[in-house]
């Protein structure tokens, strides 16, 4: 694992206790889809706000008062950490509670936790990002970094699949990326609507539409489990080396600090060894069931 993946900015929490959330105020809320919104947050304590830094791919534990916490990727630009954003799909108790909040309301935050996408390892290489659904969220900070230092990298590609055109996150931004000549962005949907003229089908189908030079491509994957598997396996079949395929995984998390044991995946803690793993580091268990 590269030093970059293991470098960690300081963890911010309340009362200097790792399990106590720090108060953060919602300053803006953008509705993305029928069940997903992006919340821009600011830590209420200016001292903590000044200290907060994160690396692309890291996540926070976001707390809804009295309801609980959920692991949520940080999806904003790491170049400006005074404010940060979370795109949250409202699926269960914690995320429903957050969906009822408005700008001015507070949540709790602990973080950032986990490993990050190894940006420096792909200097001079082609970079291929594969996102499924909300999996685009942890990749977005990486896209900001890549575009900021665009000349450091070779070809830059994003394959992004969603269920239906209405489920596309960051729509305007994605359209902006599509217009760039130095960023190849392909989107696909499972269920097209009348206005959709793009590809239909699973995101791995898009791989046929891009040129992958296996020897010089680094691949970054984040999506549902079956998509992660299909993508990793087809890159392996294209002879992309295991060390250059990175996957972000999801598990139940109750602490984020390697103590509650919930996120264990074979000998790995997804919260501290991951969520970003090189395929090489998890190859023994990646395709096994019930690990």
């Amino acid at each position: 694992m590269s030093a970059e993946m293991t470098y960690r900015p300081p963890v911010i929490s309340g009362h200097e206790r790792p399990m106590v959330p720090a108060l953060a105020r919602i300053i803006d809320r953008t509705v993305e889809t029928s069940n997903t919104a992006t919340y821009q947050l600011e830590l209420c304590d200016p001292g903590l706000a000044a200290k907060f830094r994160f690396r692309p791919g890291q996540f926070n534990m976001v707390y809804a008062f009295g309801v609980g916490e959920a692991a949520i990727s940080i999806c904003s630009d790491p170049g400006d950490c005074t404010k940060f954003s979370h795109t949250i799909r409202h699926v269960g108790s914690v995320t429903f509670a957050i969906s009822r909040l408005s700008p001015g309301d507070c949540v709790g935050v602990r973080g950032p936790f986990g490993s990050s996408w190894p940006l420096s390892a792909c200097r001079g290489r082609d970079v291929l990002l594969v996102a499924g659904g909300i999996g685009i969220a942890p990749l977005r900070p990486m896209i900001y970094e890549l575009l900021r230092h665009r000349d450091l990298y070779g070809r830059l590609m994003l394959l992004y699949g969603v269920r239906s055109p209405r489920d596309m996150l960051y729509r305007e931004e994605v359209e902006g990326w599509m217009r760039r000549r130095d960023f190849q962005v392909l989107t696909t949907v499972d269920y097209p609507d009348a206005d959709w003229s793009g590809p239909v089908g699973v995101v791995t189908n898009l791989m046929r539409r891009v040129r992958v030079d296996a020897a010089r491509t680094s691949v970054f994957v984040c999506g549902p489990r079956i998509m992660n598997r299909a993508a990793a396996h087809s890159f392996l079949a294209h002879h992309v080396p295991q060390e250059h395929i990175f996957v972000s995984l999801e598990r139940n998390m109750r602490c984020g600090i390697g103590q509650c044991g919930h996120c264990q995946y074979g000998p790995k803690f997804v919260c501290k060894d991951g969520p970003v793993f090189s395929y090489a580091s998890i190859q023994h268990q990646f395709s096994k069931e019930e690990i």
Partner: protein
Amino acid sequence: MVGNLYIIEKARLDDLIRLLREDGCRVVGPTIRDGAIVFDEIASAEQLPRGWTDVQEAGHYRLERRTDDAYFGYVVGPYSCKRYLFPPRQRLFSITRNGRPLSGFDVDVTSASPPRIAFLGVRACDLAALEIQDRVFNAEYADPYYRDVRRSAVLIAVNCSEPGGTCFCSSMQTGPRCTRLFDLALTELPAAFAAEAGTERGRALLERLSPQPADRNVQHLVELMLESAAEHMGRALDTRELPEILLQNPEHPHWNRVAERCLACANCTLSCPTCFCSNVEDSTDLGGSRAERWRSWGSCFTLEFSYHTGGFSRSSVRARYRQWLTHKLAGWHEQFGMSGCVGCGRCITWCPVGIDVTKEATTIADDVRRADVAERGARERSR
């Protein structure tokens, strides 16, 4: 004085307890409750299970009278130091909502100040378990409660001269002799204790117990007793290549056979001194203005433990037993640089159906080793 062997009279044990209490410690040691020797607060040596022993086998625990009146003539019971450093249920904070809409929270982390505990009668395996838990709870993101109790804890250890029926610490290289972490280590002899200080704090304590330097004969006797103990373990486990074997054989048929017996009751994880998994629960009062976060012991044997959005990672008992055993004996090495099993035998004794880690791991490992040998033979023959 640290590291040298001394003799103290048996009557000094009560003085030791008194001294520790005078120093402001809660003394936690072995005592009999509900037919088992548990760790609990004690005020004098009279509360120790003097003259008792425990008979332990897979799924079996019974107290019996000894023919002598040894203070420490038994091994470990269902409890360990874990219960005091990482309590079964603990409030992490309470939080009050001030104003409406949610304009802020006030967090209160003040729990009762962590007690200063002197653990008496800690065995070598439990010291090793403490070392493991230190790596979990007292590392990069220290658990504040664990850290505080651990920092002030006094450890009075006891070397085991009579291992129990489910003990296998010598296989795990954690016992029967206490080699580190203790302040004071005692070896019970027929008419006295041999005592060794491991720290300055231990030395200061020992000095107050009228110690006499142990002569060569006593030193020799202690050596013999502990060597003999190492050779009389109730169980054994061959740990050679065990982590690799377990990690590489998740599909071994023996996992199914264990799963058929396992009740997924979690007794093993609750009694294990190294198991650290927990659940974190948030709740509010009826008015909805005050909330709390509690942490309680969890277990990888429960279904909900592996729940995540979209399902359960380990829906079968087979997957859960496999997770537990593989984590203990294999994954732990990668995570914490040591085995997660210290060979205390608690999980074997307290399993209602007598599932035995040493047997289950050995069955798989022997089978894989045999197959490897056969394969190598076949390869050589075909050359």
